[in-house]
């Protein structure tokens, strides 16, 4: 395997139309490697539906070692994608986890072979609602069957089978990526040596589902959504998707971080305007987050992937007892949470840890002090990096492979 097999070319700065065209192209023909599975290799969905043909888009970094024991699977969050550590082909911005993945970094590209795949239901090249339905020649839209977190994991397992990787040295991810890590540990314990679920939970809480529903209703209330057929109508529910993102974005931050960053500061003005313009910096910031998100994400994908998170409840799949999901596990676990994360609070991680303890699993649990809320897992948090680095170094020693240096250079 060669390094950085994905496209590294940065897109030229283009106008919105050009970026939109580039984004839509990703759904079927992504700017990254893609594996296609034919009618004889369906993806068996949790709903019972067989999805075929289907495809999965992914990126890899680093090199696979001779005995194929150094593979690390990175699972992305709700609005992430496979471009974890390379320039994004649509936005031209750096990968979403370049702080974590790279030479000498905790997920060291000089030691590990790193794989990151776009989730099923996504819009960056793995089969999702924006992909062309081979049966009709038009986009799936809402004709795509519902996708679950275990479905995402199963698709990744099929990708690994194709790549000839029997066991993963580690699987790691935050938020929805952390849910996938938990599902990996429960579904394929013998294939996972070490697992790092970050800022995650074994199930979506009622509050989480409520926020998801607000986002979905915002999208579906936009007339440009066209009952999910906007690609054929030549429209795009920009406003609905932007509002969904704005609401969700609030849940990724903490009261303290919002206050520190914006307070009640006014946006380019000395006094309020007595109108509904974005007087406050926080309003302007959220509007920007909303509109820039629309430029890189598909509205129907947002419906599918948030729904997958809502449906996730690992205990229910194991007779209502979470510990049963992990019985007999030999995986080394490192559960990480952040103090001000109120979307996936520490209590949720602690429940996972208790279940792992009850299954007599090998588990570490670290709560990182941070005032940046849920998003902290994507940000520069030195103690968090030290944890991941130390855990991976220890696990690599136990696995008998080269790991990251115990201390950052």
């Amino acid at each position: 395997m060669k390094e950085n097999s994905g496209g590294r070319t940065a897109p030229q700065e283009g106008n919105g139309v050009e970026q939109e065209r580039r984004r839509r192209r990703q759904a079927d023909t992504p700017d990254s490697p893609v594996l296609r599975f034919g009618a004889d290799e369906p993806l068996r969905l949790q709903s019972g539906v067989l999805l075929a043909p289907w495809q999965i888009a992914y990126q890899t970094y680093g090199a696979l070692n001779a005995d194929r024991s150094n593979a690390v699977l990175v699972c992305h969050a709700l609005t992430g994608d496979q471009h974890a550590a390379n320039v994004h082909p649509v936005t031209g911005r750096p990968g979403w986890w370049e702080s974590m993945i790279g030479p000498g970094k905790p997920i060291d590209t000089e030691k590990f072979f790193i794989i990151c795949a776009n989730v099923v239901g996504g819009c960056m090249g793995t089969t999702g609602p924006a992909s062309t339905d081979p049966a009709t020649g038009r986009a799936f839209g809402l004709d795509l069957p519902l996708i679950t977190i275990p479905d995402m994991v199963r698709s990744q397992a099929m990708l690994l089978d194709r790549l000839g990787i029997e066991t993963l040295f580690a699987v790691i991810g935050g938020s929805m990526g952390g849910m996938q890590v938990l599902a990996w540990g429960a579904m394929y314990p013998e294939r996972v040596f070490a697992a790092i679920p970050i800022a995650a939970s074994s199930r979506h809480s009622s509050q989480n589902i409520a926020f998801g529903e607000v986002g979905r209703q915002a999208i579906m209330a936009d007339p440009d959504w066209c009952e999910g057929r906007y690609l054929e109508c030549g429209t795009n529910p920009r406003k609905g998707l932007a509002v969904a993102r704005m609401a969700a974005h609030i849940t990724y931050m903490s009261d303290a971080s919002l206050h520190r960053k914006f307070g009640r500061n006014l946006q380019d003005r000395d006094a309020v305007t007595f109108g509904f313009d974005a007087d406050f910096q926080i309003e302007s910031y959220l509007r920007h987050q909303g509109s820039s998100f629309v430029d890189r994400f598909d509205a129907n994908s947002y419906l599918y992937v948030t729904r997958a998170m809502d449906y996730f409840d690992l205990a229910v799949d194991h007779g209502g007892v979470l510990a049963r999901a992990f019985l007999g596990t030999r995986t080394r676990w490192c559960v990480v949470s952040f103090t001000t994360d109120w979307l996936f609070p520490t209590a949720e991680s602690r429940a996972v840890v208790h279940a792992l303890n009850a299954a007599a699993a090998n588990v570490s649990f670290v709560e990182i002090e941070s005032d940046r809320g849920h998003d902290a897992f994507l940000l520069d948090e030195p103690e968090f990096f030290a944890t991941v680095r130390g855990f991976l170094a220890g696990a690599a020693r136990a696995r008998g492979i080269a790991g990251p240096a115990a201390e950052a250079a």
Partner: protein
Amino acid sequence: MSTLAVGEKRVDFRVVAELVAPGSRVLDVGCGEGELLELLAIEKNVDGRGIELSQAGVNRSVARGLSVIQGDADRDLGAYPDDAFDYVILSQTLQATQRPRVVLEHLLRIGHRAVVSFPNFGHVRVRLGLLFRGRMPVSENMPYSWYDTPNIHYCTIGDFLDLCAELNARVEKAVALDAKGDRIAETAPNWYRNLFGAQAVFLLSR
């Protein structure tokens, strides 16, 4: 949760390390920054886990590659199944727990054997200090003043033996260390060890 200054290897660590069989499964309750776990991993090749109350201790333990969770001996031991470990170690932590008896019961349930070390409140200096100065003891082994100590349940070696008898715990080995950290002969009678032992390390089984 550990009450002794961390730095050079504590003398009770050496005793604990001798009591633990090579290659065994070990849970260290109140593991601090993981010094004992690391020592056991290196010298005894154990499969070690830890619980530590202080987040800083946990983070440092995990960063050095140890399997440690943030947790409370009083609250979180219930989540562990019976017989999950060969040894459960409670090193200089018993006296800081809310319910030492319940904690000790959990240790004996979770592990085939329990290793417990604690400072001895029956030591001659403590007794004389109370007798002549009328003040709570502050020493190398008990470094806190009464008003800010995390150690809320001090006991003597004699008290601990009584509790073991109540719980039907078998004392497989009892090592007392004098104020200089030297071992008191195992042939010495209990009253002598209770008087001159500054700290004690017990190996218990059900």
